[in-house]
C-alpha cells in the first residue's frame, strides 16, 4: 500500500477528483480537479504546485564526494561549481543507463542527488576507496516543484534568496518565515520553475506559505496528468516509459545507452575512469543503434482519417504512454521504431510524441508513419522527425530583472 507524503494533509484536502496514482510507493495526485486542463494551463500561464516527494533523494558528503560522483555518473561532476545543478544519468559497465536525475552541489563537499528509482545500493557498490558518506534522505525530505511564469514572483514573496539573480540550474539554501529550504531553479515542465526541498517537519509550512502567497499569482495545485503533458512538450524522458533501468531489464534489447535516449550530451568521455566509459567510448566511435526523437504528427491527416468515419477528430485530453509502432511507409510492414509517449499540445497546437527509432532514420525533418487507431481500425499518419524539445520558452532560462551579470 502506498504511503502518504508529508504534504498529504493538504493535498488530500484539495484533491477533489479523488484521482490518485502510485508513484514510487507514495500516493500522488493525478489531478486535483476532474479535468486536469486548468492544472496544465497553470503550469504554462501562472504557477502549478506539484508534490515531488516520491523522488529518491541522496546526500553525498565528504572530501571525495566530487570524485566519487564523477566515477558513477556519465558527467564529470568535479567540474560542477558550488551552487550549481546538473542533469545527467548513470550507467552500468556496459554503458547502459540505470537511471537519470539531478546532481546539486550544495557545498564544496556536499551534494544532493535525486533519482527516479532507488539507487542507494547501486551507488554504495562503488564507495570503496572514497572518503564519502552516502545518506539516503528520501524518507526525511519533502519536496515540491513550483512551475510556471509567475513562480518567480511567488518565490520572492516566500523566500529570502535573491531570486532576480538566481540562474537556471542553480541551487541555494535559503530561509522562509520559520523554516529553511534548499531551492533550485529546475523542474520537469520545461518552463520557468523551481524545486524546493525541506525536512518533513517543515513540509506543511512550505505548502501553506506558497499557497498563501501564490494566491495573488493564480497558483494551483497540479497533478501528474498535467505534468505529463508539459514534460512531453519539453522533450523530457521518463524512466519506465521512454527507457528502462538496465538493472531491471529482462532482456538486453530493453537496455539503452545515454546516446540512444537523447542524453548523449551529458556524457563526458575524456577524463578519469567512470562507469561505462569504455563501452560508451566504443559506441561514440561506432555509432548507436537507436535514437529518441520528437515526432510532429500531421493533424490534417488525422482529421481526414476521422472524417472518413463521419467523426470530428478525437484527441485524448491526456498524455499517452503506450508503445505505438512507427513505420517508414503506410504498408504497416516496415517498422523502424516505436513512439513511447505523446500528447496533444494545447499551447503548440500540435500532436506530438517521443519515439525511439533506428538511428539511420533520425534526421530532423524526415518523415515517418505513426500508427493511429480510429474506430478500431489501424491507420497511419505522417509524422515529421523533430527535436524532442518542442517547447522552450525564453522565460525558462532568463533573468529579466537581474542586477548581476
Amino acid at each position, binding site marked *: 500500500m502506498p504511503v502518504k507524503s508529508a504534504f498529504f494533509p493538504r493535498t488530500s484536502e484539495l484533491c477533489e477528483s479523488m484521482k490518485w496514482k502510485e508513484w514510487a510507493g507514495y500516493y500522488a495526485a493525478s489531478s486535483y*480537479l*476532474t*479535468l486536469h*486542463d*486548468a492544472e496544465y*494551463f497553470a503550469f504554462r*500561464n*501562472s504557477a502549478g504546485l506539484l508534490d515531488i516527494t516520491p523522488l529518491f533523494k541522496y546526500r553525498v558528503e565528504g572530501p571525495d564526494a566530487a570524485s566519487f560522483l564523477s566515477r558513477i555518473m556519465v558527467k564529470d561532476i568535479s567540474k560542477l561549481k558550488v551552487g550549481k545543478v546538473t542533469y545527467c544519468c548513470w550507467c552500468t559497465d556496459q554503458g547502459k543507463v540505470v537511471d537519470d536525475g539531478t546532481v546539486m552541489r550544495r557545498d564544496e563537499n556536499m551534494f544532493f542527488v535525486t533519482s527516479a528509482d532507488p539507487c542507494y545500493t547501486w551507488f554504495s557498490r562503488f564507495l570503496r576507496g572514497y572518503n564519502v558518506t552516502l545518506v539516503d534522505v528520501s524518507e526525511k525530505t519533502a519536496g515540491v516543484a513550483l512551475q510556471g*511564469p*509567475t513562480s518567480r*514572483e511567488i518565490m520572492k514573496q516566500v523566500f529570502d534568496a535573491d531570486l532576480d539573480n538566481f540562474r537556471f540550474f542553480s541551487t541555494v539554501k535559503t530561509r522562509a518565515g520559520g523554516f529553511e529550504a534548499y531551492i533550485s531553479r529546475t523542474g520537469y515542465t520545461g518552463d520557468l520553475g523551481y524545486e524546493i526541498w525541506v525536512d518533513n517537519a517543515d513540509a506543511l509550512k512550505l505548502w501553506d506559505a506558497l499557497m498563501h502567497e501564490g*494566491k*495573488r*499569482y*493564480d497558483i494551483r495545485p497540479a497533478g501528474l496528468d498535467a505534468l505529463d503533458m508539459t514534460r512531453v512538450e519539453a522533450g523530457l524522458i521518463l524512466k519506465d516509459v521512454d527507457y528502462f533501468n538496465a538493472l531491471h531489464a529482462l532482456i538486453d534489447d530493453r537496455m539503452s545507452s545515454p546516446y540512444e535516449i537523447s542524453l548523449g550530451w551529458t556524457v563526458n568521455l575524456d577524463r578519469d575512469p567512470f562507469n561505462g566509459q569504455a563501452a560508451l567510448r566504443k559506441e561514440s566511435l561506432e555509432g548507436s543503434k537507436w535514437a529518441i526523437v520528437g515526432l510532429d504528427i500531421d*493533424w*490534417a491527416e488525422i482529421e481526414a482519417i476521422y472524417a472518413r468515419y*463521419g467523426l*470530428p*477528430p*478525437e*484527441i485524448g485530453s491526456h498524455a499517452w504512454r503506450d508503445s505505438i509502432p512507427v513505420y517508414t511507409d503506410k504498408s504497416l510492414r516496415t517498422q523502424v521504431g516505436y513512439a513511447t509517449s505523446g500528447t*496533444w499540445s*494545447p*499551447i*503548440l*497546437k*500540435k500532436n506530438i510524441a517521443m519515439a525511439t527509432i533506428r538511428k539511420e532514420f533520425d534526421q530532423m525533418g524526415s518523415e515517418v508513419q505513426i500508427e493511429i487507431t480510429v474506430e478500431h481500425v489501424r491507420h497511419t499518419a505522417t509524422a515529421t522527425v523533430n527535436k524532442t524539445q518542442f517547447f522552450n520558452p525564453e522565460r525558462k532560462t532568463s533573468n529579466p530583472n537581474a542586477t548581476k551579470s
Partner: protein
Amino acid sequence: MSTKYDAIIIGGGHNGLICAAYLAKAGRNVLVLEKRHVLGGAAVSEELHPGFKFSVASYVVSLFRPHIIRELNLAKHGYQIIPMDCSFLPLPNGDSLARWADPQRSRREISRFSQKDAETYPEFSRVMTHMGKLAKEVIDHPAPDITSLKIKELTSLLRLAKVFKGLGPDLLHLNTKLVTLSAVDFLDLWFESETLKAPMSVSGIIGTYQGVRSPGTAYVLLHHYMGQLDGAFRSWGFSKGGTGGVSLACAEAAKSFGAEIRTESAVQQVHIKNGKAVGVVLENGDELHAKQIISNLDPNRTYLKMIGEEHLDEDVLKEVKRFKLRGSSGKVNLALDRVPEFSCRPGDGDHIRGDIAIAPSIDYLEKAFDQAKYGEFSQRPYINAVIPSLTDPSVAPPGKHILSCFVQYAPYHIKEGAENWPKYREAFGDTVVDTMAEYIPGLKDMILYRQVLTPWDLEQQMGLTEGNIFQGELSLEQLLFQRPIAGYSKYKTSVRNLWMCGSGTHPGGGIMGASGELCAKTMLKSRSI
C-alpha cells in the same frame, strides 16, 4: 510615384492581417494600413489603466479556424488560448446554475432545475456537434453561388449536398428548423427549464438586433456553437494577453512572411481610375499604389466611404444601403482591486473562471429587447461577463482583476439619435454596474477604472458602422452567397481590383479568421494576384 505593392489592405483587424499573411506567404508584396496606433481592430488589447490589459471589444475566442493556426504557424508567433471551463448563471433569488466541461457535474447542476433537461443535455450537444460539422463545411469554403451553372460552383454545391445527405433525415429536418426558428423555439424542442434555456438562448441574439423569441435567431445560436478548440466543438477560451494577442500573432506571422504593416495610417478613400482600383489616398494626402486593394472594413464603409457613391450602380447602392448593421450591444470594462464574489455562490472558485451570464429568464431577455425596439438601452440588460485575470495573470496586476461585460441591448439608434449616445454613456455604464452589483455585493467599491463603450463609441473608435460587432448582422438574408450582397459574395466588390476580407463577408462574425483566409485564397486561386 510611391512603391507599387501587389496588394494594399485597408485595416489591420485580425482578418486583414490574416489575409496579408496568406498573400505574403504566397510571395506577394503586401502592405497593411491601420488607422489606429494599435493593431487588431475589434480584437484588440489595450492597457487603459496601468497594469490592466483590457480586451476592449471582443473578449473570447472559439471560432478561430484551427487550420489557419497551423498554416500560418500562429502558435509560434504567440497565439495561445486558455480554455474556459464553466458557464455560470447567477440568479436573483440566490440560486445559481453552473455548466461545466465535466458532463456529470453539469448533469447534477441542471437536475436541480429539471432532471429531464439534465439528461437531454448531452443529446443536444451531440446534435449540435453534427450541426457544427456541417457548419464547418460551410465556413471553411467560399459560399457557392446557387444562381450559377459554372462547373466550379456546381461542384462546390455538390460537396455541400454530400455533407447534408450524410446528416440523415432527422438532422436535416432539424437544420431547417435551425434556420427558421427563434432561439427559444429551437431550445423548446429539447428543454423545459427556463433557467437552462435562458442562458442558452442568448447565443442566438449576440450581436443582433433581435430578441430571443425572434425567428431566425436559432441560426446565430449555431454560429456560437460551431467553435472549435483543439478538435473539441463548442469550446470557448481566453486569448493570452487579451484578444489583441490573436491579432498580434497574426501580425507577427504576416511580418515573418514579409508583409509590411503600418499603424496610424488612415485611408481616406480608394483611388479609382476608369472603374478600377489603383491605389489608396491616405488622410495625410499621401497616395499609395497597388495592383489590388483589399478592404477589411465593413461593407458600408467599403462601399460608401472607400469607394464612394459616384462609383456605384444604383442596384449595388440600394443593396449596400439596405445591408443591416444596426449594432445592439455595448461593452463595459472594469478594473477591480479584488476578486468580485457572487453572493449566490461566494468565493473565487472555478465557477467564475469561465463566462458569467446575467440572463435569469427568457422574459427578462425579451423585455430587455422590448426597450431596444423603441430606441432605449435596456434598464435590465443581458450581460455576458468574464474575469480573464483569474486564468491569465498577465492581464492585471497581482491580486487585481478585470471584469469585462458585454452588454445587450444598447441599440445604436437610440430615439435621441445615435450622435447623442455620448450624453447617455455614463448612465448606460451605471445601469450595467448597478445590474452586476445586484449579484456582486460591494462591486462599486472595487472599481479602480471603468471604460464604457456604446455602439457609437465602437463606430467612432473602431470603425464598426453602427457599432455592429459582426460588421453586419448574421441574419439569414445576409449570409452565405448573400453576404454582404448578392452577386458580390466572393470577396469581390463591384469595383475591379477591389476586394473585401472583413467579417462583413462570408462566413463572418467572431474572431474566426475565415474571411481573411478565404479572401486571400480566392484571390490566389483565381490568379487575380
